[in-house]
């Protein structure tokens, strides 16, 4: 047992990990990201939200006595003794260029922009490596079958980390392909939300929020801080009938 540097209140066991092949001792409760920083690495890429959402910190690692490649987001995955790890902050993948307004909402548009889609051999390496547990190969299959909706639903959780592209036998830039599918689906297949139109109009045509925004911009730091602390928040237990006391800005 030893004290964690800079925080004497926490005592923890140290475990050995291998970061890019070199051995370091790190506290056992640390995430991979914290462990790497503890070991002296400084992230200028490969680190984003630190909340498991943005996908910037995809990490691959192996455990002793196990042939499997393991994956996780460095900010979410806790270290294990003796693991070998490295971060993959970016993986090159070509993105097709297109003018979205000229695309038709048909699968053939995806086929034209990414003909390599048909190089998939169904090896399933993409699904095995996805840190978000997406059925990546099924989504590729869905697109080949012309089923944009299914591909979009399957890849909804994609964080664009690129690990699927790194492992692809057919060299498909999968995360770009799925992004195109989601854009086509969201922009051209799903019905437009009527309430969104009203909200956009309130902002751009009625200038409903301009005055408030302007007054915020004119506040000094002290006033801003107070306004922030005094703001009315929706209670955690609120039902959908809850309304703020200030109703001027509601769209109803």
């Amino acid at each position, binding site marked *: 047992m030893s004290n964690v540097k800079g925080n004497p209140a926490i005592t923890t066991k140290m475990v050995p990990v291998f970061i890019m092949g070199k051995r370091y001792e790190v506290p056992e409760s640390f995430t991979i990201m914290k462990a790497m920083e503890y070991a002296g690495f400084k992230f200028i890429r490969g680190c984003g939200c630190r909340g498991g959402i943005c996908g910037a910190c995809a990490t691959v690692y192996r455990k002793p006595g196990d042939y499997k490649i393991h994956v996780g987001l460095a900010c979410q995955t806790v270290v294990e003794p003796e693991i070998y790890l490295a971060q993959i902050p970016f993986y090159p993948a070509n993105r097709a260029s297109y003018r979205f307004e000229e695309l038709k909402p048909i699968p053939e548009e995806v086929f034209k922009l990414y003909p390599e889609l048909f190089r998939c051999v*169904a090896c399933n390496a993409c699904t095995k490596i996805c840190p978000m547990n997406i059925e990546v190969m099924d989504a590729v299959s869905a697109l*080949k*079958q012309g089923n944009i909706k299914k591909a979009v639903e399957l890849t909804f959780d994609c964080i664009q980390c690129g690990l699927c592209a790194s492992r692809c036998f057919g060299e498909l830039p999968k995360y770009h392909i799925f992004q195109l599918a989601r854009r086509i689906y969201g922009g051209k297949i799903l019905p437009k939300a009527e309430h969104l139109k009203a909200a956009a109009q309130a902002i751009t045509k009625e200038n409903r929020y301009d005055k408030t925004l302007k007054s915020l911009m004119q506040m000094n730091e002290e006033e801003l801080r107070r306004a922030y602390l005094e703001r009315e928040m929706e209670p955690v237990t609120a039902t959908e009938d809850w309304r703020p006391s200030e109703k001027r800005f509601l769209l109803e």
Partner: protein
Amino acid sequence: MELSYYPGCTLKTRAKNFEDSATAFMAALGINLKEIPRWNCCGAVYSLADDDLIHQLAPVRDLIRVKEQEQGKVVVLCSLCFNTLKRANLLMRNDAEKRKTLNTFMDEEVDYNGEIEVVHLLEVLRDDIGWKTISDKLKVPLKHLKLAPYYGCALLRPQEVAIDQMERPVILHQLLQALGAEPIDFPFATKCCGSFQAVGNREGALECAWNILSSAIRRRAEALVLSCPLCDFNLAGKQEELKQKYPEFKGIPTLYFTQLLALAFGLDSKVCRFELNYQDPRPLLESKGLL
């Protein structure tokens, strides 16, 4: 009754006329073609290189999906998918060493040992339903329609996957007779349509198509009957190019055998999706009073 069914990618995109007509006439026979879940592209061609196991993953994975449904067999419509899946199935059944390699690689799947049967829809019609049942179901006999049954390669070669006699197949002839049409024999019925040569050797593929089509026309066939979207692409999809190359060529429609079944069963012709046929067969069918 329910049958596990593997559609293949083309039946879900370019060849909806093949799939929609098939599910419709099968429903009329009281059989539900139930699409297997989570299927992937079969690979579109069986890999012939002995050590190229990576390209066996796709068809074998599809066979595993069938096994997971606890189904004894899977029905396929597209001739190429049928050929690819059936050969991969035999590989898994007969080659213990490759079976082990493939099962070990796919460690996320259950082991597969070639347990299921891969059958073509034509075999289901002949062996399970029978020509007589089909004849009894006729509402619109396809009288006076002279049709050339075109088999191509994938239903007949190699021998271990053939659904009929390789040299002189009769299964499509028998179907057409059961439907009241007149099958037209022609010597190019089992010749290759040009297959994937259409990609790298366009002239060669065109020549294949020309030999087949002109042979059928010489014997007064009014349309060709097919079971493969790739054959259709080569034989019907390339007819405008053929007309330029051979000015005497006037064109000839092609039909999937499933469209003929739907028509003969008196189903709404919408299920045939004739608008998707490369060469519109509707003028011919109207001239015979079938539409």
